[in-house]
């Protein structure tokens, strides 16, 4: 199945990647080339086969229900969290105005 330019533009929008006409012109044939190639998976009979969910059997662990069980993943580190923010203001992440 091949996708048209409009579909690729929609995908770019869903992926939040701005694309001008020249970028879309480049992307459409590449996108279709890759899709045509992965479509060979349709040949494989997978009836009765479960999709892979974990490559190595493992179980989900629960940690103790306490605050800051692991200091590395706990709280109270606002300045560190904000240290790399492009626009930290008043202890928050700054973004363009969302609500008029």
């Amino acid at each position, binding site marked *: 199945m091949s996708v048209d330019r409009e579909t690729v533009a929609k995908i770019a929008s869903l992926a939040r*990647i701005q694309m001008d006409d020249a970028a879309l012109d480049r992307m459409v044939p590449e*996108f279709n080339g890759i899709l045509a190639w*992965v479509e060979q998976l349709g040949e*494989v009979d997978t009836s009765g086969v479960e999709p*892979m*969910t974990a490559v*190595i059997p493992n179980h989900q662990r629960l940690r103790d229900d306490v605050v800051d069980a692991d200091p590395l*993943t706990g709280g109270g580190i606002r300045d560190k969290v904000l240290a*790399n923010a*492009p626009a930290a203001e008043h202890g928050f992440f700054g973004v363009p105005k969302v609500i008029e």
Partner: protein
Amino acid sequence: MTDLTDLGVKAIRDGVAAGTFSAREVAEAFNANVAAAQDALNAFIVATPEKALEAAEAVDAARAKGETLGKMAGVPIGMKDLFATQGVQTTAASHILEGFIPQYESTVSANLWKAGAGMLGKLNLDQFAMGSSNETSYFGNVISPWRKQGSNAGLAPGGSSGGSSAAVAARLCPAATGTDTGGSIRQPAAFTGITGIKPTYGRCSRWGIVAFASSLDQAGPMARDVTDCAIMLEAMAGFDPKDSTSLNLTVPEWTDGLDADMSGHRVGIPKEYRMEGTDPDILESWDNGIAWLRDAGAEIVEVSLPHTKYALPAYYIVAPAEASSNLARYDGVRYGLRDLPEGANLQEMYAATRAAGFGDEVKRRIMIGTYVLSAGFYDAYYNQAQRVRTLISQDFKAAFEHCDVILAPTTPTASFPLGDKSDDPLAMYLNDVFAVPASLAGLPAMSVPAGLNKDGLPLGLQLIGKAFDEQGVLNAGLAIEQRAGFTARPEKWW
């Protein structure tokens, strides 16, 4: 006195422990090599000579006090720039993370520092580890130290761990970290005549590694030989409650368990890996590997992995799907680049930031991933790929009923000139045709040097083991290493 930069991990560690030379002397020697090669090879994004010296001095001081030294004490290493290093820029070779200074240390790098290793710098790679030639880095191509006989053309060091492979091969570091999502340790190791192992999925914590495809990403060592890889993997691996897929298992003493006697072991040769179009030099090196393992006492058996040809297309659905989700975090809000055009709203800021910050290959994969996960296509693409992945994993389980370890080529060709495949994504993807199946099944797999092709370029052989059986992989690798007698190194031109 020997050149300290000719020594590997074990020789350096043992020499430092014995007082033959100091850790500081070692760090100084490698720092000098790193600086001298940077313009020509571009293996590092950032060099950290002061970090290497600081760690070395700590080891020398600990030794002077008679303290017990760690497994990697006095060994300076290169760190792939995908591992978060506290206070040192971590970019994943992308513009979107340029200038990002982590406030924390990844578990794997922290384990290495605790074992006494020091950091020479952050190694270049394909952007977000997406590539097989190190040509997608925002910080420029890495140039392989190897050249074809009679040619000065720049060759690909492999990818995505191309800075790691080039640096180890060029003696800029005795070992380096790599990460492997679909061959990113093994393929560059094969291209540069070094050794690299991807352990069982979950052996090394993913905490603090910039995520690409979380169900596939695994860290591992890249070094000059099997023993050095075993030592370094012991230092890197271990249970980490901060990674929900980390294996809660004791790290085996792989180095003590090394044994090249293959008597009583069966080595499987997967018939589907004899693909049309594979370079005759690769097939010849595979036959050599079979002969070497037979000579080591192994019984050789043919095995079948019937879904091999579907591994690569399944990978190019699963990995981009996970990447599209993982890379959604780069939005210009919390860290990294922000591109805010005049008057733009929040959504426009996201789209502008991501357009400016991601390279073409990263965009391609995010878009493919977004598409295969989108409503109406999820079952036909993503679920079908995950079902095929189950079949690939079952193929390996069935094969391992007949053998203990699998021998295959690492790559379909030797290294190629930079620029040769960069315009054709599918041709580039095919490089990982032999590496991807083990990744999809989460199995330990290693590449060891097997010889040179007729152009004088290195070729690698791959060993794939059962889940949790790194020892079987390392032992078969050692048997090959001892018989291949690979001593070739790139002639210094940089």
